Structures are given as C-alpha cells and as structure tokens.
C-alpha cells in the first residue's frame, strides 16, 4: 500500500491501530483508541481553523471597509487569535447578581456540544466520515436544532431584559429559517435517493476518469433545482447561524449583544467558538450537498478540496456581512415565511419534474431545463411581486418627517 497525500490521515489512523493491536493492548483499549483518535484530530484541526477564521474575518472586513485590521501581533497580525485567547482565559468571569447560576454555567456548555458533534457526520475527505449513517443529513439538522435551546437558556439565566429579548429573537428566527433550510436541502436528497452524505457526495463525483476539475459538471449546483435549492439553503443557513445581515438576535446597536450580553471571559469565547464552528460545519454541509463535497481535481487531496470550498463559502458570507445592512425583525420574518418557504416548496415540485423527465439526449435535457425553468421563473417573479409592495415602501415616521 502506498502512502498518498489524499489518504494520508486514514492510513496513519490504520497504522496506529495496527501498532496498538500488535503491542497486545486489550481489545477495549484499542476500541477506545479507534474512537478517540478521530475525535481529537477533528477537534484539534477545526479549532485551529476557527482561530484562523477569526483573524481572516477581521482582515477581510477591514479590507472591504478600507482599514488595515489586526496588524500588531506577529506578521500581518496572524497571532492575534492567540492574544485574544489569552485575554479571554484570564478575564474575570462575571455572573450577574440575579442570574440562575446553574443555567448560566450550563448554556455555554450546551451551545458548544452540537457545534462539535455535527462534525462526526460530515464527509471531510475520501473515506473520512466518522459516523456513516443512513440519516446523516437529517441527523445534522436534528443536532443543530439543540443550539436553539442553548440560546434560550443563556437568555433566561442571565436575568437581563436585553438577553431575554435577544434569545427570543434568536429562537423565532431559527425556527422560521429551519423550514427553508431543510426544504432547501431536500432536492439533493430526492435526486440522489439517500440521506447519506457520503452517497450524495459520491453522486456528484466524476463518472469517468479525466473529467474537468474532478467532475465539476456533475455538481448539483448546475441544475435549475440545485441552483434555487442552494441559494435558499445558503440564505437560510446564514440566518440559522445568526450571521449578518440576519444578526438581529445580537444586534449590538439595538439590544447590546443579545443572549450573550451577560457573558464574559471564557464563557463568551465558547459562544464565539460555537458560532464559528457551526459556520464551518454548515459550509461543509452546503458544499457536500450542492458543490460536490470533497470531489476535486486529482492533484489535490480530497480534504484540501473541501477546505477550499469551505473557505470559499465563508468568504462569501464575510463579503455579504460587510456589504449589507441588518434586517428589521418584521422584514426577517416576512422574508422567510413569504418568500423563501414558498420558493423552496415550489422548487421541490421542480425537482420532481426534473427527476421524472428523461435527460439522455441533448434535446431531452433542453426539455427538462425548460420545464424546470417554466415552474421556477414565474414563481420567483410572482413572489418578488407579491413581496415587493410593502417591504420596499419607504418607512414613514410620524414625527421625524414633519
């Protein structure tokens, strides 16, 4: 067996386990080792990724806003995350006087657990899925829905009206956007016929050797339903992650910092980490569902391809964050319920049409494209027209306008 860069991690893992068996370690210890190694490696790598990402986000946003960003600690300010970490660890941990001490402590713990757990389900590279179940897409959504409750605990336990307001905003927002999120992921599941992420990624892989960029043509994105599904999924995901412009739950100018107003030091760092880890996990899921996952050109190892796709998606999120202003609460709700949700539901119908129609010849393909476009484009135009009226109307102020 030759050691390749692509399978390097898997081979090293097998080698360590082989050595452990050869040393005559008891079976339970080997089993424990086989479970612990992926966990430790994934947490270590992606926590490092998180640290780098905090630096990257500040740098990117600074560039867009014509500033320098962090540039004091290390070259290009690269060691800024280390300084931030030390600061967070050594800060005083303040617990408000009226707070529910147990729940106040529990919330940051609960918020981190789902953010880390979902990594077990993601295919991080070829043969690199920790838990390969039948229902991995659904399980991903189920686990991440737990974080909603963590936000409530944080808001409630802080005994602060801004925290409570932020938590309720966050819950309302996450519940509303969960529907377009799941419905946005559904077309990919429908067409592949499996909720297993590995199968979905494999279906988007190259069908023959030597295809352009490792079968880029087979990505789900390049179909009418895939495009609409991806856009709906991506927007809903950004709302689910409380990222700008959907960050009304922690809008600094409105309610200080929302549910984590009363958290300082390491607990605040945990909230921050959970947010970034979920962002990375969501980007990995989006690329697995619509952007071909770890499939890429043969000269790049599969895990690096996924890294690059994750970075690409996160860069787009940063770009959007620094470009668009924050939404109002009513706009946010209306956008989910009146625009994204109907569009996602119609998209499922279009997916069904696409799935039924033959796509063997070029003419067949044109018919399938036409049929899907005939369903989706009028829907989009209609929804845009129906939503356009009041939402874009200039807001009237009773006194300020006089």
């Amino acid at each position: 067996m030759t050691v390749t860069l692509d399978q390097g991690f898997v081979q090293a893992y097998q080698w360590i386990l082989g050595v452990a068996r050869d040393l005559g370690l008891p079976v339970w210890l080997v089993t424990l080792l086989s479970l612990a190694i992926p966990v430790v490696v994934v947490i270590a790598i992606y926590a490092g990724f998180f640290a780098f990402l905090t630096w990257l986000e500040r740098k990117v946003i600074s560039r867009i806003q014509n500033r320098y960003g962090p540039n004091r600690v290390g070259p290009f300010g690269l060691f800024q995350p280390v300084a931030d970490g030390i600061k967070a660890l050594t800060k005083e941990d303040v617990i408000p006087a009226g707070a529910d001490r147990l729940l106040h402590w529990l919330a940051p713990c609960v918020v981190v657990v789902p953010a880390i757990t979902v990594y077990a389900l993601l295919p991080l590279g070829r043969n690199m899925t920790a838990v390969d179940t039948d229902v991995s897409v659904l399980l991903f959504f189920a686990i991440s829905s737990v974080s909603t409750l963590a936000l409530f605990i944080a808001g409630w336990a802080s005994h602060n009206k801004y925290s409570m307001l932020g938590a309720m905003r966050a819950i309302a927002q996450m519940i509303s956007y969960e529907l377009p999120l799941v419905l946005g992921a559904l077309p990919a599941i429908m067409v592949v016929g499996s909720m297993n992420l590995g199968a979905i990624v494999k279906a988007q892989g190259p069908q023959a050797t030597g295809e352009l960029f490792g079968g880029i043509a087979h990505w789900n994105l390049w179909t009418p339903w895939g495009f609409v599904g991806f856009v709906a999924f991506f927007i809903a995901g950004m709302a689910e992650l409380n990222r700008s412009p959907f960050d009304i739950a922690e809008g600094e100018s409105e309610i200080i910092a929302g549910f984590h107003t009363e958290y300082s030091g390491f607990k605040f760092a945990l909230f921050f980490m959970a947010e970034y880890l979920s962002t990375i996990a969501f980007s990995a899921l989006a690329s697995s569902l619509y952007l071909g996952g770890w499939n890429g050109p043969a000269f790049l190892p599969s895990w690096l391809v996924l890294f690059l796709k994750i970075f690409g998606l996160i860069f787009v999120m940063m770009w959007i964050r620094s470009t668009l202003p924050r939404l109002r609460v009513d706009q946010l709700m209306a956008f989910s319920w009146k625009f994204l949700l109907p569009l996602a539901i119609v998209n499922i119908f279009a997916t069904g049409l696409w799935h039924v129609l033959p796509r063997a010849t070029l003419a067949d393909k044109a018919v399938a494209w036409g049929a899907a476009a005939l369903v989706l484009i009028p829907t989009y135009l209609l929804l845009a027209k129906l939503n356009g009226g009041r939402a874009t109307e200039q807001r009237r102020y009773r006194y300020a306008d006089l």
Partner: protein
Amino acid sequence: MDIAQLGFVLLSAVTIAGALGATTINDLPRALLSLVLFFFGVAALFFMLHAEFIGVVQVLVYVGAVAVLFVFAIVLTRARLQATEIGRLVPSRVLGILGAAVVGAGLVGVVVRTTDVPLPAVAPLGTTAPIGEALMTRYLLPFEIASVLLTAALIGAVVIALEDGEQRRSA
C-alpha cells in the same frame, strides 16, 4: 453484564431521572431542561434498538420543535411569577400519586407475568428506506391525513393564540 446491558441501564437511569425532574422540579425552565434530557434519553434508546430514523425524528420534533413551543409558552405566560410549586400533599394529590402508582404497578405486574423474549441479536438493516417506501405506498392515506391534521393544528393554534382585535386596540 455486557456492554449493551450497561448502556441500557445507564440510559434508563437518565431517562427516568429526566422524567422525574420534569414532573417534580418547580422552576419551569429547569423542568423543561429536564424534559429535554428525557427526550434525549428516549431518542438514545431508539438508536440502541436500531430504529435510527425514529430516533432522529424524535430529536428533531421533540427537542427542536415541541421543547421550543414550551419555551414560548413559558415566556408568554410569565410563568416564573405564577405559583408553580407542587405544594402540600392535599388529598387530591395523594390520590393522584396513588392512582399513578397503581397503574404503574399493574402494568409492571402484567409484564413480569408474561414470558420474556430476548431481543434478536441480528440488527435489522437500514429501516429508513423501507419506512419511506411504506409511507408512500401502504400507509399513504394515514400519511396524507397526518399532514392535513398538522395543517389544521397549525392554523388552529394561530387562531387560538391570536389576540382579538378589540384587545389589541385597547392594549
């Protein structure tokens, strides 16, 4: 005791503790969290019994939706200010606990008297696809009725919880 039995005992302990917490704790948010623990315990039991799909739906529906509904109810009724304590053991409460104990003892008594069946060692293979197929063929009518029921419940809940126009004007 093998590892499966150990897991089962631990899970049962967690589940029962969660249920007891949800029914005895006075502070509402804490009781709710105890209920979530119970939901997770049941979901884990489903996973252990190889009903993965039901386990996932359990987490998605109960933790992701029902628990959040309870959150909204707690916040909207300002229940922290309400008397929620179990209170003294007035006769009606004692009767309630006694009745529940009798029902539980009866159920356990019936179960113990039947012949015990060990669960088959062979795990059923992938239940997700067969469940999906059954829902679209043999159980299509119940499936459709369930969706109509959910729609009716959704509309009903909105109508019931909506403030009347008069109240809104006076508020």
